[in-house]
């Protein structure tokens, strides 16, 4: 599909036609075979390998993303998702035999994974390559036909997908539709077998409401304010480096699992701030606005969202490091703030940028109240050597994922489900969880005519009730009677 021109607007008719074509493709059984799925995954793996520099270039254009980040966070993660799926595809596709119950003896049972059908993947702008290709890989590996709608806020990457994806995959079953709100609305009006959305809660609600009209299941990968609890007993140098790379080394804070704010004790805060300052200078130099290792802010809208937070009264005077901004270049330096008011914009909304408020408490146990007063985040972090505090954190904090003594890493582990809870989302993916997210797990139960429990049928008698009771409770005696007693 070429980039759209003014007379090729993607409207409802086009959306209908697209879904119809995919449905035909799906009904023909094309996408269900192992061969097809493997071929698509191999195609994507080739795409990632051959077009690595184009991808890096697009990411630089959209976000001024440093090459290292493009490699670390997008390309390599996409590659490993692809290869992991290829390696496990056969295994995942196999039906899972499960024990049948004594109540249904004699019977055999299995769970068969089947594709949901025709699915829609709506991607986000901050990791525009990864967050597009990763769910698409999941859709493919589960045997679905899929439409990808990349974010229009990352136009270079969106255009890249539209141009190159058809060269590497079966474009009768995998399509890219570019566009903004009108195109997305047209797509959402169609009937899908699953919708996978990555983005914010506001649009997430719109997606789910649209899905409700067709009883379409959804996965929503949203965000939240990911807290970082820092104890004073940690190896400060290492902790601070990990926090810093998780915050500013991830698209300059524009990441759903980037640390949003820190909580630490009043007494430890000064040390923490100093350590952060030292690390920031080591990473980004004395003039961070000029560092090539920092992404820029994605657009003016988002830039203003961040500067509004900084400029708020009683907040701007809490800056203890950084604060420099450059509107023309859309750059904001790593900024630390200390003890901003709890009802300030920066503490009420997901920051999604290079601002890091530090909230202080008298003792760390007080932090749980603060964390739980906000909606459940996608990730929550705690730095401590104290096992008791660690356990309390795990028990008291509900989040999509928790990492102790590091930040963001869990997203790279393909054996861990990646997803939110509450406001941070519905559903999970990565690794086999991606396969599961786009599959229907069909129970298949098989019986013969060897054993028949006459007790199941009317006319009912107390004796039958007695046998049924025993049978349901797994009694062998009742089973025996059930099978052999003639009524």
């Amino acid at each position: 599909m070429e980039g759209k021109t003014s007379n090729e607007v993607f409207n409802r008719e086009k959306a209908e036609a697209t879904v119809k074509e995919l449905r035909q493709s799906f009904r023909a059984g094309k996408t269900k075979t192992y061969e097809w799925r493997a071929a698509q995954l191999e195609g994507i793996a080739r795409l990632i390998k051959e077009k690595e520099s184009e991808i890096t270039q697009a990411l630089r254009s959209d976000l001024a993303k440093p090459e290292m980040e493009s490699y670390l966070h997008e390309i390599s993660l996409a590659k490993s998702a692809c290869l992991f799926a290829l390696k496990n595809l056969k295994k995942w596709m196999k039906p899972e035999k499960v024990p049948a119950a004594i109540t249904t003896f004699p019977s055999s049972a299995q769970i068969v994974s089947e594709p949901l059908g025709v699915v829609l993947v709506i991607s986000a702008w901050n990791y525009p390559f990864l967050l597009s290709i990763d769910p698409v890989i999941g859709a493919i590996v589960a045997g679905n036909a899929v439409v990808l709608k990349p974010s229009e806020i990352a136009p270079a990457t969106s255009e890249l997908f539209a141009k190159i994806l058809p060269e590497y995959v079966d474009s009768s079953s995998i399509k890219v539709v570019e566009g903004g709100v009108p195109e997305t609305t047209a797509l959402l009006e169609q009937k899908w077998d699953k919708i996978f959305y990555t983005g914010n809660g506001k649009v997430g609600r719109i997606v789910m409401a649209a899905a409700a009209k067709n009883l379409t299941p959804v996965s929503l990968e949203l965000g939240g304010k990911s807290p970082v609890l820092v104890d004073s007993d940690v190896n400060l140098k290492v902790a601070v480096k990990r926090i810093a790379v998780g915050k500013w080394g991830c698209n300059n804070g524009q990441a759903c699992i980037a640390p949003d704010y820190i909580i630490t004790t009043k007494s430890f805060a000064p040390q923490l701030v100093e350590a952060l300052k030292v690390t920031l200078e080591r990473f980004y130099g004395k003039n961070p606005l000029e560092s090539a290792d920092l992404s820029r802010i994605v657009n003016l809208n988002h830039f203003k969202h961040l500067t509004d937070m900084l400029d708020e009264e009683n907040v701007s005077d809490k800056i203890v490091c950084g604060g420099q901004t450059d509107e023309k270049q859309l750059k904001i330096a790593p900024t630390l703030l200390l003890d901003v008011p709890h009802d300030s914009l920066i503490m009420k909304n997901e920051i999604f940028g290079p601002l890091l408020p530090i909230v202080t408490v008298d003792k760390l146990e007080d932090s749980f109240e603060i964390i739980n007063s906000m909606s459940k985040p996608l990730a929550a972090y705690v730095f401590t050597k104290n096992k008791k505090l660690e356990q309390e954190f795990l028990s008291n904090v509900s989040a999509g994922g928790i990492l102790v003594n590091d930040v963001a890493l869990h997203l790279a582990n393909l054996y861990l489900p990646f997803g939110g809870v509450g406001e941070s989302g519905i559903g999970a993916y990565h690794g086999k969880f991606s396969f599961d997210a786009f599959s229907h797990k069909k129970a298949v139960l098989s019986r013969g005519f060897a054993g028949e429990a006459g007790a199941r049928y009317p006319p009912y008698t107390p004796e039958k009730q007695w046998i049924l009771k025993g049978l349901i409770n797994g009694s062998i005696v009742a089973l025996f009677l059930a099978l052999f007693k003639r009524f």
Partner: protein
Amino acid sequence: MALITGKKCGDEEMGALGLETEVAEARTTFDSGKTKGFEWRKSQLEALLRLLQEKEEDMLKVLKEDLGKHRVEAYRDEVGALTKSVDNALLNLKKWMAPEKVSLPLVAVPTVAEIVPEPLGVVLVMSSWNFPIGLSLEPMIGAIAAGNAAILKPSELAPATSEFLAVEVPKYLDCEAIKVIQGGPQVAEQLLDLKWDKIFFTGSAQVGRIVMTAAAKHLTPVTLELGGKCPAIFDSLKSSRDQRMAVGRVAGAKWGSCLGQACIGIDYLLVTDEYAPTLIELLKGVIKEFFSNSEHLARIVNKHHFQRLCNLLQDESVAASLVHGGSVNAEELFIEPTILLNPPLDKEIMTEEIFGPLLPIITLKKIEDSIEFLRARPKPLVIYAFTHDEKFKQRIVDDTSSGCVMFNDTLIQYLCDTIPFGGVGQSGFGQYHGKFSFDNFSNRKPVGRRNFLIEFSFRYPPWNEKKLQLLRHIYRFDYIGFVLCFLGLKR
């Protein structure tokens, strides 16, 4: 203990304030951490078991009152099934609650990780009228086992059962965390306006849409257990013994369970032109054998549904296809087992879920045509097939889609705790029973741990080519390459 009794079923507002207060109390209780511990969950499940045992007679009585179910049917389908589920949950609770260890890739070393299940919080269970005790308490078992506070809204269309639950549940279970709120559509609407951590709904697709739309406002995850037209494919079976048994199972699934008002009941049969007459004769025989005494059959739930079913038969071409039964008793809300042969496919009886004792038999040239027939229609909760042909069975599994596929029997998939129970497409999404219930009401939270001992400096800016190279090796799990590169012996 506060009792929520004295509330008559019907569409009166509970008093918005009363309702919100109850839910708020449940939330406070959940936030206190009370419901999270193993002991609490175990005690609630044990209490539920006692309720099922001690109040068995009362349960059978209200099911008779609301739906005319014979006590054996009521025990088999609801009370007994629940007992099995609670036993299973008690047996496995510790195992289900235990964190699951997970393996990890090199870059994360030395990290350990596990998946820890945690409750979602305060959940809403909205139940249906046809298995009003079973479909209320089965999801509740999952909610409780997973450590949530839970509010149950039973269906007002089964008023005796609703009242029973509202009175008895608070006597056995912790009423600060587990509540029953009675009422009709207005109460349901009020409940749906509130913020829940999960909504579990059993009922029609129409209301399912309303529930999901309301849930979208709060990004609340939902499970929708809906229905559909569940077909039974009837292939030619060799022995007459097998045939007789199969027909018995079909009859049991069509009329023996809530008089056909069951989401997994058989809606219609698919059979060859050739075999249809034999099948009809066999069915008539079995109907006589099992159901001569209408006391062994349930009743239509209310006048509205009774009228709806009668209307299905009004159409001339549908009435003409009647081959057995058809008589109705408005006072008793009873419709006898009725068989129709090839009613027109465009009439309501074949386009909408019947949910009653009318059994259309649709004939095909050959039995394999049933697959195309089903593919052209919305995905049902279950596809039944009676056949010995292994190839045909495989085709059914591969080429059709449904919540479940059941070969050579009916209904008993409901009792099997090892397989997921739920729909797909128009029949819903989300699954439960056994551990699937526990997972349905849990957040499976990954937890990763690192220590400070080993640190890879190439994780951090400022970036350079060397760091990029090291990472390339790591991501390809090329340990040797990594070591060489690290030592500066390789580019």
